[in-house]
Protein backbone atom coordinates (compact mmCIF):
# COMPACT_ATOMS: atom_id res chain seq x y z
CA UNK A 1 0.00 0.00 0.00
CA UNK A 2 2.76 2.43 0.87
CA UNK A 3 5.33 3.14 -1.78
CA UNK A 4 8.38 4.32 0.07
CA UNK A 5 10.32 5.98 -2.73
CA UNK A 6 7.19 7.83 -3.76
CA UNK A 7 6.33 9.07 -0.28
CA UNK A 8 9.90 10.11 0.36
CA UNK A 9 10.03 12.07 -2.89
CA UNK A 10 6.72 13.77 -2.11
CA UNK A 11 7.73 14.53 1.48
CA UNK A 12 10.98 16.05 0.26
CA UNK A 13 9.17 18.22 -2.28
CA UNK A 14 6.73 19.45 0.35
CA UNK A 15 9.52 20.28 2.78
CA UNK A 16 11.31 22.20 0.05
CA UNK A 17 8.56 24.81 -0.36
CA UNK A 18 9.97 28.24 0.61
CA UNK A 19 9.40 28.62 4.34
CA UNK A 20 7.90 32.13 4.44
CA UNK A 21 5.53 31.55 1.52
CA UNK A 22 4.25 28.36 3.07
CA UNK A 23 3.80 30.04 6.46
CA UNK A 24 1.70 32.82 4.97
CA UNK A 25 -0.47 30.30 3.15
CA UNK A 26 -0.76 27.86 6.03
CA UNK A 27 -1.72 30.48 8.64
CA UNK A 28 -4.71 31.62 6.58
CA UNK A 29 -5.59 28.09 5.51
CA UNK A 30 -5.61 26.64 9.01
CA UNK A 31 -7.70 29.45 10.40
CA UNK A 32 -10.58 28.60 8.08
CA UNK A 33 -9.73 24.94 7.58
CA UNK A 34 -13.14 23.47 8.37
CA UNK A 35 -15.06 25.95 6.22
CA UNK A 36 -12.68 25.48 3.33
CA UNK A 37 -12.86 21.67 3.51
CA UNK A 38 -16.64 21.60 3.70
CA UNK A 39 -16.98 23.96 0.77
CA UNK A 40 -14.44 22.12 -1.37
CA UNK A 41 -16.22 18.83 -0.68
CA UNK A 42 -19.58 20.36 -1.64
CA UNK A 43 -18.13 21.61 -4.92
CA UNK A 44 -16.76 18.12 -5.58
CA UNK A 45 -20.03 16.33 -4.88
CA UNK A 46 -21.84 18.77 -7.18
CA UNK A 47 -19.95 17.23 -10.11
CA UNK A 48 -22.01 14.49 -11.82
CA UNK A 49 -19.33 11.80 -11.61
CA UNK A 50 -19.07 12.21 -7.85
CA UNK A 51 -22.75 12.58 -7.00
CA UNK A 52 -22.84 8.89 -6.10
CA UNK A 53 -20.38 9.47 -3.29
CA UNK A 54 -22.49 12.13 -1.61
CA UNK A 55 -23.95 9.66 0.85
CA UNK A 56 -20.82 7.65 1.47
CA UNK A 57 -19.84 9.37 4.69
CA UNK A 58 -22.20 10.73 7.36
CA UNK A 59 -21.81 14.27 8.69
CA UNK A 60 -19.99 12.90 11.71
CA UNK A 61 -17.66 10.72 9.70
CA UNK A 62 -16.83 13.61 7.40
CA UNK A 63 -16.02 15.83 10.38
CA UNK A 64 -13.77 13.15 11.86
CA UNK A 65 -11.90 12.71 8.59
CA UNK A 66 -11.48 16.47 8.24
CA UNK A 67 -10.02 16.71 11.73
CA UNK A 68 -7.65 13.79 11.06
CA UNK A 69 -6.27 15.46 7.97
CA UNK A 70 -5.93 18.80 9.74
CA UNK A 71 -3.97 17.19 12.56
CA UNK A 72 -1.77 15.38 10.07
CA UNK A 73 -1.00 18.65 8.32
CA UNK A 74 -0.44 20.42 11.64
CA UNK A 75 2.03 17.76 12.70
CA UNK A 76 3.87 17.94 9.41
CA UNK A 77 4.13 21.72 9.62
CA UNK A 78 5.31 21.60 13.24
CA UNK A 79 7.83 18.80 12.90
CA UNK A 80 8.88 19.42 9.29
CA UNK A 81 8.26 15.73 8.63
CA UNK A 82 5.87 15.22 5.72
CA UNK A 83 6.06 11.43 5.34
CA UNK A 84 2.74 10.63 6.95
CA UNK A 85 0.88 13.25 4.94
CA UNK A 86 2.56 12.11 1.72
CA UNK A 87 1.46 8.54 2.41
CA UNK A 88 -2.09 9.75 2.90
CA UNK A 89 -1.98 11.53 -0.47
CA UNK A 90 -0.70 8.39 -2.15
CA UNK A 91 -3.49 6.35 -0.58
CA UNK A 92 -6.00 8.87 -1.96
CA UNK A 93 -4.52 8.60 -5.43
CA UNK A 94 -4.70 4.82 -5.30
CA UNK A 95 -8.36 4.98 -4.38
CA UNK A 96 -9.08 7.19 -7.42
CA UNK A 97 -7.11 4.76 -9.56
CA UNK A 98 -8.98 1.73 -8.25
CA UNK A 99 -12.28 3.50 -8.79
CA UNK A 100 -11.40 3.67 -12.44
CA UNK A 101 -11.88 7.42 -12.57
CA UNK A 102 -10.89 9.11 -15.77
CA UNK A 103 -7.96 11.51 -15.67
CA UNK A 104 -10.27 14.48 -16.21
CA UNK A 105 -12.43 13.38 -13.29
CA UNK A 106 -9.64 13.02 -10.75
CA UNK A 107 -8.22 16.35 -11.89
CA UNK A 108 -11.59 17.95 -11.26
CA UNK A 109 -11.72 16.17 -7.92
CA UNK A 110 -8.55 17.76 -6.58
CA UNK A 111 -8.76 21.22 -8.17
CA UNK A 112 -11.69 23.00 -6.42
CA UNK A 113 -9.76 23.66 -3.24
CA UNK A 114 -7.52 26.44 -4.60
CA UNK A 115 -10.50 28.45 -5.80
CA UNK A 116 -12.14 27.97 -2.42
CA UNK A 117 -9.04 29.04 -0.46
CA UNK A 118 -8.21 32.14 -2.53
CA UNK A 119 -10.88 34.43 -1.03
CA UNK A 120 -9.63 33.53 2.45
CA UNK A 121 -6.11 34.51 1.52
CA UNK A 122 -7.34 37.80 0.10
CA UNK A 123 -9.24 38.52 3.32
CA UNK A 124 -6.27 37.62 5.52
CA UNK A 125 -3.71 39.71 3.63
CA UNK A 126 -5.75 42.52 2.21
CA UNK A 127 -3.39 45.01 3.79
CA UNK A 128 -0.24 43.69 2.14
CA UNK A 129 0.02 42.73 -1.49
CA UNK A 130 3.49 41.31 -0.84
CA UNK A 131 2.11 38.94 1.79
CA UNK A 132 -0.85 38.02 -0.40
CA UNK A 133 1.51 37.28 -3.26
CA UNK A 134 3.68 35.12 -0.98
CA UNK A 135 0.65 33.27 0.32
CA UNK A 136 -0.63 32.54 -3.19
CA UNK A 137 2.81 31.28 -4.23
CA UNK A 138 2.91 29.11 -1.13
CA UNK A 139 -0.55 27.73 -1.88
CA UNK A 140 0.35 26.98 -5.46
CA UNK A 141 3.62 25.33 -4.52
CA UNK A 142 1.84 23.22 -1.91
CA UNK A 143 -1.02 22.04 -4.09
CA UNK A 144 1.29 21.48 -7.07
CA UNK A 145 3.12 18.85 -5.02
CA UNK A 146 -0.14 17.49 -3.61
CA UNK A 147 -1.65 17.06 -7.06
CA UNK A 148 1.51 15.58 -8.54
CA UNK A 149 1.67 13.07 -5.69
CA UNK A 150 -1.97 12.05 -5.89
CA UNK A 151 -1.76 11.98 -9.69
CA UNK A 152 1.28 9.72 -9.80
CA UNK A 153 -0.26 7.30 -7.31
CA UNK A 154 -3.50 7.34 -9.34
CA UNK A 155 -1.66 6.57 -12.56
CA UNK A 156 0.43 3.75 -11.12
CA UNK A 157 -2.67 2.16 -9.62
CA UNK A 158 -4.58 2.45 -12.88
CA UNK A 159 -1.73 0.87 -14.84
CA UNK A 160 -1.49 -1.92 -12.29
CA UNK A 161 -5.23 -2.61 -12.65
CA UNK A 162 -4.97 -2.73 -16.43
CA UNK A 163 -2.08 -5.14 -16.19
CA UNK A 164 -4.07 -7.43 -13.90
CA UNK A 165 -6.93 -7.45 -16.41
CA UNK A 166 -4.57 -8.19 -19.30
CA UNK A 167 -3.08 -11.10 -17.40
CA UNK A 168 -6.57 -12.42 -16.72
CA UNK A 169 -7.36 -12.35 -20.44
CA UNK A 170 -4.12 -14.15 -21.19
CA UNK A 171 -5.00 -16.83 -18.70
CA UNK A 172 -8.07 -17.71 -20.76
CA UNK A 173 -6.44 -20.75 -22.20
CA UNK A 174 -7.71 -22.29 -25.38
CA UNK A 175 -8.84 -25.86 -24.77
CA UNK A 176 -7.84 -28.47 -27.32
CA UNK A 177 -10.67 -30.96 -27.65
CA UNK A 178 -10.49 -34.40 -29.25
CA UNK A 179 -13.68 -34.77 -31.29
CA UNK A 180 -13.04 -38.01 -33.14
CA UNK A 181 -10.23 -40.49 -33.36
CA UNK A 182 -7.47 -38.44 -34.89
CA UNK A 183 -9.38 -35.12 -34.91
CA UNK A 184 -8.87 -32.14 -32.63
CA UNK A 185 -10.97 -29.00 -32.26
CA UNK A 186 -9.58 -25.65 -31.03
CA UNK A 187 -12.22 -23.01 -30.31
CA UNK A 188 -10.32 -19.72 -30.11
CA UNK A 189 -12.08 -16.86 -28.37
CA UNK A 190 -10.95 -13.32 -27.68
CA UNK A 191 -8.05 -11.16 -28.65
CA UNK A 192 -5.05 -13.12 -29.79
CA UNK A 193 -1.72 -11.42 -29.19
CA UNK A 194 1.71 -12.89 -29.82
CA UNK A 195 1.87 -14.43 -26.38
CA UNK A 196 -1.48 -16.19 -26.73
CA UNK A 197 -0.68 -17.31 -30.27
CA UNK A 198 2.50 -18.87 -28.88
CA UNK A 199 0.52 -20.66 -26.15
CA UNK A 200 -2.03 -21.82 -28.70
CA UNK A 201 0.61 -23.31 -30.97
CA UNK A 202 2.38 -25.15 -28.19
CA UNK A 203 -0.91 -26.48 -26.85
CA UNK A 204 -1.93 -27.71 -30.27
CA UNK A 205 1.39 -29.41 -31.06
CA UNK A 206 1.42 -31.12 -27.68
CA UNK A 207 -2.15 -32.32 -28.17
CA UNK A 208 -1.30 -33.63 -31.66
CA UNK A 209 1.51 -35.67 -30.18
CA UNK A 210 -0.53 -36.86 -27.21
CA UNK A 211 -3.76 -37.71 -29.05
CA UNK A 212 -2.04 -38.78 -32.27
CA UNK A 213 -4.21 -36.48 -34.32
CA UNK A 214 -3.90 -36.03 -38.04
CA UNK A 215 -6.48 -33.26 -38.45
CA UNK A 216 -7.11 -30.18 -36.30
CA UNK A 217 -9.96 -27.74 -36.81
CA UNK A 218 -9.09 -24.29 -35.45
CA UNK A 219 -12.18 -22.13 -35.18
CA UNK A 220 -11.66 -18.38 -34.90
CA UNK A 221 -15.29 -17.22 -34.90
CA UNK A 222 -14.64 -15.65 -31.51
CA UNK A 223 -11.59 -13.67 -32.62
CA UNK A 224 -12.51 -10.07 -33.41
CA UNK A 225 -9.52 -9.04 -35.43
CA UNK A 226 -6.13 -10.09 -36.56
CA UNK A 227 -3.06 -8.06 -37.46
CA UNK A 228 -0.22 -9.18 -39.68
CA UNK A 229 1.84 -10.40 -36.74
CA UNK A 230 -0.94 -12.64 -35.47
CA UNK A 231 -1.81 -13.78 -39.00
CA UNK A 232 1.77 -14.95 -39.34
CA UNK A 233 1.53 -16.71 -36.01
CA UNK A 234 -1.47 -18.67 -37.28
CA UNK A 235 0.43 -19.59 -40.43
CA UNK A 236 3.34 -20.77 -38.31
CA UNK A 237 0.91 -22.86 -36.28
CA UNK A 238 -0.42 -24.44 -39.48
CA UNK A 239 3.10 -25.12 -40.76
CA UNK A 240 4.36 -26.54 -37.49
CA UNK A 241 1.38 -28.90 -37.36
CA UNK A 242 2.08 -29.88 -40.96
CA UNK A 243 5.63 -30.83 -40.01
CA UNK A 244 4.08 -33.27 -37.59
CA UNK A 245 1.92 -34.69 -40.34
CA UNK A 246 -1.27 -32.94 -39.24
CA UNK A 247 -3.59 -30.90 -41.43
CA UNK A 248 -5.02 -27.76 -39.88
CA UNK A 249 -8.37 -26.49 -41.10
CA UNK A 250 -9.11 -22.89 -40.18
CA UNK A 251 -12.78 -22.01 -39.77
CA UNK A 252 -14.91 -19.05 -38.75
CA UNK A 253 -13.02 -16.21 -40.40
CA UNK A 254 -15.10 -13.06 -40.03
CA UNK A 255 -15.54 -10.72 -43.00
CA UNK A 256 -13.12 -8.29 -41.34
CA UNK A 257 -10.48 -10.97 -40.93
CA UNK A 258 -11.02 -12.30 -44.45
CA UNK A 259 -10.42 -8.80 -45.79
CA UNK A 260 -7.41 -8.29 -43.57
CA UNK A 261 -5.81 -11.59 -44.57
CA UNK A 262 -6.03 -10.78 -48.27
CA UNK A 263 -5.00 -7.14 -47.84
CA UNK A 264 -2.00 -8.12 -45.73
CA UNK A 265 -0.84 -10.29 -48.59
CA UNK A 266 -0.79 -13.44 -46.50
CA UNK A 267 0.19 -16.50 -48.52
CA UNK A 268 -3.20 -18.13 -48.99
CA UNK A 269 -1.80 -21.39 -50.34
CA UNK A 270 -0.62 -22.07 -46.83
CA UNK A 271 -4.09 -21.84 -45.37
CA UNK A 272 -6.82 -24.44 -45.58
CA UNK A 273 -10.03 -22.64 -44.66
CA UNK A 274 -13.69 -23.51 -44.44
CA UNK A 275 -16.48 -21.04 -43.69
CA UNK A 276 -17.81 -22.40 -40.43
CA UNK A 277 -17.06 -25.00 -37.79
CA UNK A 278 -19.68 -27.41 -39.10
CA UNK A 279 -18.13 -27.34 -42.54
CA UNK A 280 -14.67 -27.66 -41.05
CA UNK A 281 -15.61 -30.76 -39.09
CA UNK A 282 -17.22 -32.32 -42.16
CA UNK A 283 -14.05 -31.66 -44.16
CA UNK A 284 -11.95 -33.14 -41.37
CA UNK A 285 -14.13 -36.26 -41.29
CA UNK A 286 -13.72 -36.59 -45.03
CA UNK A 287 -9.95 -36.40 -44.71
CA UNK A 288 -10.03 -39.05 -42.01
CA UNK A 289 -12.14 -41.30 -44.16
CA UNK A 290 -15.36 -41.02 -42.22
CA UNK A 291 -18.67 -41.01 -43.97
CA UNK A 292 -21.60 -39.77 -41.91
CA UNK A 293 -25.05 -40.89 -42.95
CA UNK A 294 -28.40 -40.50 -41.32
CA UNK A 295 -30.22 -43.64 -40.21
CA UNK A 296 -33.93 -43.90 -40.83
CA UNK A 297 -35.53 -43.66 -37.39
Amino acid at each position, binding site marked *: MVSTTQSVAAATALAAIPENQFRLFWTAYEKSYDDISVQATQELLALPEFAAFANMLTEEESAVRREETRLMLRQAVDTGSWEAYAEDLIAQGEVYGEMGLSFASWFKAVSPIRVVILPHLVTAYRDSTDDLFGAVLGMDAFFDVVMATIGTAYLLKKEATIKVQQDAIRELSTPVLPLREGMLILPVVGVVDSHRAHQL*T*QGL*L*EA*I*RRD*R*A*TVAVVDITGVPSVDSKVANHFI*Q*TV*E*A*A*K*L*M*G*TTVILTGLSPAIAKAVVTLGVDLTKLNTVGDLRGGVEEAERLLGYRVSQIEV
Partner: protein
Amino acid sequence: MASTLAVPILRQADILIVTLQGDLGDAEWAKLTDDLLDRVAERRTRFAVLDLSVVDVLDSFACRTIVGLTNMVALRGPTMIVAGIRPSVAFAMVQLGATLPGVATALDLDHALSVMTHG
Protein backbone atom coordinates in the same frame (compact mmCIF):
# COMPACT_ATOMS: atom_id res chain seq x y z
CA MET B 1 28.65 -35.91 -29.95
CA ALA B 2 28.22 -37.17 -33.52
CA SER B 3 27.97 -40.87 -34.15
CA THR B 4 30.70 -42.36 -36.30
CA LEU B 5 28.50 -45.27 -37.39
CA ALA B 6 26.50 -44.97 -40.59
CA VAL B 7 22.83 -44.25 -40.15
CA PRO B 8 20.92 -47.57 -40.33
CA ILE B 9 18.65 -48.05 -43.33
CA LEU B 10 16.18 -50.92 -43.00
CA ARG B 11 14.02 -52.38 -45.71
CA GLN B 12 10.45 -53.57 -45.23
CA ALA B 13 9.14 -54.92 -48.56
CA ASP B 14 9.07 -51.89 -50.86
CA ILE B 15 9.67 -49.40 -48.06
CA LEU B 16 12.99 -48.12 -46.75
CA ILE B 17 13.09 -46.90 -43.15
CA VAL B 18 15.84 -44.53 -42.08
CA THR B 19 15.99 -43.90 -38.32
CA LEU B 20 18.17 -41.03 -37.26
CA GLN B 21 19.70 -41.73 -33.85
CA GLY B 22 20.67 -38.15 -33.12
CA ASP B 23 21.84 -34.95 -34.75
CA LEU B 24 23.91 -35.38 -37.88
CA GLY B 25 26.98 -33.46 -38.99
CA ASP B 26 27.64 -32.38 -42.59
CA ALA B 27 29.70 -35.44 -43.46
CA GLU B 28 27.10 -37.79 -42.03
CA TRP B 29 24.32 -36.16 -44.05
CA ALA B 30 26.43 -36.54 -47.17
CA LYS B 31 27.02 -40.25 -46.43
CA LEU B 32 23.33 -40.81 -45.69
CA THR B 33 22.37 -39.20 -49.00
CA ASP B 34 24.75 -41.46 -50.92
CA ASP B 35 23.65 -44.60 -49.06
CA LEU B 36 19.96 -43.89 -49.50
CA LEU B 37 20.23 -43.08 -53.20
CA ASP B 38 22.04 -46.40 -53.68
CA ARG B 39 19.60 -48.46 -51.63
CA VAL B 40 16.44 -47.22 -53.40
CA ALA B 41 17.69 -48.84 -56.56
CA GLU B 42 18.51 -52.32 -55.26
CA ARG B 43 14.83 -53.35 -55.36
CA ARG B 44 11.56 -51.71 -56.27
CA THR B 45 11.09 -49.05 -53.60
CA ARG B 46 7.88 -47.04 -53.34
CA PHE B 47 8.59 -45.13 -50.16
CA ALA B 48 11.46 -43.97 -47.99
CA VAL B 49 10.64 -42.90 -44.45
CA LEU B 50 12.96 -40.60 -42.55
CA ASP B 51 12.23 -41.11 -38.85
CA LEU B 52 13.21 -38.05 -36.81
CA SER B 53 11.56 -38.99 -33.53
CA VAL B 54 14.86 -39.01 -31.64
CA VAL B 55 16.15 -35.76 -33.11
CA ASP B 56 16.22 -32.76 -30.76
CA VAL B 57 17.35 -30.08 -33.14
CA LEU B 58 16.90 -29.47 -36.83
CA ASP B 59 18.82 -26.46 -38.03
CA SER B 60 18.24 -24.78 -41.39
CA PHE B 61 21.10 -26.73 -42.98
CA ALA B 62 19.51 -30.01 -41.97
CA CYS B 63 16.15 -28.83 -43.32
CA ARG B 64 17.61 -27.82 -46.67
CA THR B 65 19.39 -31.14 -46.84
CA ILE B 66 16.18 -33.06 -46.15
CA VAL B 67 14.32 -31.15 -48.87
CA GLY B 68 17.15 -31.82 -51.29
CA LEU B 69 17.24 -35.49 -50.31
CA THR B 70 13.50 -35.80 -50.86
CA ASN B 71 13.81 -34.45 -54.38
CA MET B 72 16.86 -36.57 -55.19
CA VAL B 73 15.12 -39.72 -53.97
CA ALA B 74 11.97 -38.80 -55.91
CA LEU B 75 14.01 -38.54 -59.11
CA ARG B 76 14.95 -42.17 -58.63
CA GLY B 77 11.37 -43.22 -57.99
CA PRO B 78 10.30 -43.40 -54.33
CA THR B 79 8.31 -40.84 -52.35
CA MET B 80 10.00 -39.74 -49.18
CA ILE B 81 8.03 -39.19 -45.97
CA VAL B 82 9.46 -37.40 -42.96
CA ALA B 83 8.01 -38.74 -39.71
CA GLY B 84 8.23 -38.02 -36.01
CA ILE B 85 9.18 -34.35 -35.87
CA ARG B 86 8.76 -33.40 -32.21
CA PRO B 87 6.54 -30.46 -31.14
CA SER B 88 9.50 -28.42 -29.93
CA VAL B 89 11.43 -29.08 -33.12
CA ALA B 90 8.42 -28.21 -35.32
CA PHE B 91 7.92 -24.97 -33.42
CA ALA B 92 11.56 -23.98 -33.65
CA MET B 93 11.59 -24.74 -37.35
CA VAL B 94 8.65 -22.53 -38.24
CA GLN B 95 10.08 -19.71 -36.16
CA LEU B 96 13.28 -19.91 -38.15
CA GLY B 97 11.27 -20.08 -41.35
CA ALA B 98 13.01 -23.39 -42.07
CA THR B 99 10.14 -25.59 -43.18
CA LEU B 100 10.02 -28.55 -45.54
CA PRO B 101 8.12 -27.36 -48.58
CA GLY B 102 6.84 -30.16 -50.77
CA VAL B 103 7.80 -32.87 -48.32
CA ALA B 104 5.18 -35.29 -47.03
CA THR B 105 5.13 -35.61 -43.25
CA ALA B 106 3.63 -37.99 -40.71
CA LEU B 107 3.18 -37.92 -36.96
CA ASP B 108 5.29 -41.02 -36.41
CA LEU B 109 6.51 -44.19 -38.03
CA ASP B 110 3.23 -45.93 -37.33
CA HIS B 111 1.19 -43.26 -39.11
CA ALA B 112 3.66 -43.15 -41.95
CA LEU B 113 3.31 -46.88 -42.50
CA SER B 114 -0.47 -46.65 -42.38
CA VAL B 115 -0.45 -43.83 -44.95
CA MET B 116 1.84 -45.84 -47.18
CA THR B 117 -0.19 -49.03 -47.04
CA HIS B 118 -3.61 -47.42 -47.31
CA GLY B 119 -2.72 -44.42 -49.47
